[in-house]
């Protein structure tokens, strides 16, 4: 791509698409509109490099195959709780019912993911290498959740820039050195934020209203678990790609504990559920 000639504006300096003179004359004002006025005057045209054109042998993730659904996370008095179900769905098929979507990085930090399971397994591997290297420095200092979060932000964003994203929504949770809790979310295009409660996928719509109403940073563990269970129930009722089999990870100053898979009691015993059209002839 040859660079297109620049216009040298005496008013604004070289290489700038501006008026040629500081004062616009009829030569400039009456000039017909340029069709490529929005394009830069120097450099190659944007988006010209399509990897397929260059016969790139690498694969590019275009769509996910085996996916995990929502992840829910809240801060509470002693630390953070992160919950999700254990389903690896294959499109609309509930195929793998015991997938691990929560990964323990070290005694202070945990990462959970929705989205493509294979990409999360790759990320877990990266984190394992990071944590192992960290351990080998043998200085008694562990990676903090903030550091893991920043690292993952860069990983996700750089992959996005290569048009080969890791198809995940990640939740990073843990306890910092000073004892404060940390919760952050990193998306597949590098979007990231931290907050007192964080959700991915369907939980954004279903669980966030419950969190906004009931979560507070100094809530007790019992209240936090109760809130987590209620939110997991709503996600199971209303997300078709979910199962009644959950894991909750708890990270406190004491360390990390990831629960064994458990179920929640779902309510189907409302009277109207049994015969919704009984008294409504012609209804559905």
């Amino acid at each position, binding site marked *: 791509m040859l660079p297109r000639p620049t216009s040298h504006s005496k008013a604004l300096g070289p290489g700038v698409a501006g008026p040629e003179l500081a004062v616009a004359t009829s030569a400039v004002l009456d000039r017909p509109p340029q069709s490529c006025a929005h394009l830069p005057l120097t450099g190659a045209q944007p988006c010209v490099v399509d990897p397929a054109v260059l016969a790139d042998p690498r694969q590019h993730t275009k769509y996910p195959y085996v996916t995990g659904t929502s992840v829910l996370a809240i801060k509470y008095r002693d630390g953070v709780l992160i919950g999700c179900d254990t389903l690896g*769905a294959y499109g*609309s*098929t*509930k*195929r*793998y*019912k*015991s997938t691990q979507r929560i990964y323990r990085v070290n005694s202070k930090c945990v990462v959970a993911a929705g989205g493509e399971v294979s990409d999360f397994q790759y990320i877990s591997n990266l984190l394992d290498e990071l944590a192992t290297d960290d351990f080998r420095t043998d200085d008694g200092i562990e990676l903090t959740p903030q550091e893991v979060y920043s690292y993952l932000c860069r990983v996700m964003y750089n992959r996005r820039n290569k048009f080969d994203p890791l198809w995940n929504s990640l939740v990073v949770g843990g306890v910092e050195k000073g004892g404060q809790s940390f919760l952050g979310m990193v998306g597949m295009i590098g979007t990231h934020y931290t907050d007192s409660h964080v959700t991915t996928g*369907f939980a954004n719509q279903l669980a966030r209203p419950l969190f906004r109403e009931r979560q507070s940073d100094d809530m007790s563990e019992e209240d936090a*678990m*109760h809130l987590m*269970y209620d939110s997991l129930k709503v996600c199971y*009722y*209303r*997300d*078709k*790609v979910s*199962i*009644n*089999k959950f894991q909750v990870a708890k990270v406190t100053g004491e360390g990390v504990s990831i629960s064994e*898979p*458990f*179920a*929640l*009691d*779902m*309510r*189907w*015993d409302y009277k109207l*559920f*049994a*015969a*919704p*059209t009984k008294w409504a002839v*012609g209804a*559905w």
Partner: protein
Amino acid sequence: MVSASDAVSLGTSIMAVTFDGGVILGADSRTSTGNYVANRVADKITPLSDNVYTLRSGSAADTQAIASHVQHFVAQHQAEEGDHISVKTVANLVKMMAYNNKDNLQAGLIVAGFDKHEGGQVYSISLGGTITRAPFAISGSGSTYINGFVDKNWRDNMTEQEAMDFVTRALKYAMTWDASSGGCIRTVTITSAGAKRQFIPGSDILPTYGELGREAIRA
């Protein structure tokens, strides 16, 4: 972005089986809009007459429209004939609606019932309006997962209890694999004595491999 697949649809598991003395119709209770479960306790078993019911799968709006039209024609027919309509006639009315409007509909229905001429009968009406009579029929997105199961476990002339167990087991497996099916199991048993409804709440459905039973319930 709203797409055609986001329309309210009965991604579904439905089936009907004949047994010695009548038919049993069974369905799950999930209606989904995309991945959202719009109704977790839907009723997909719709009466077309006292002795003939239909199971609906596909677009909720389309199947409701067809059922509604057929209910009207059946009522008219029964008023003129002064007798219960035969299952075959109802099934053909449904077929006519599905076939003549095939370009505009996305509906797969199973029509099943009991009449004094031929006893219990099951008719399956597929997307284009093909009508097929069979001793039993399965349909909906969840049915693909239980083709092997029903082929292996179907028997002719089962008792009512055996047929009920067959239907509930088959639907359980369909619901466990298909994300578009779930919730509760509804059944309707039609015999010479009329139609009887039953409801199995989701919590009463036994877990399959990989799922958890009630002993694992934490809260």
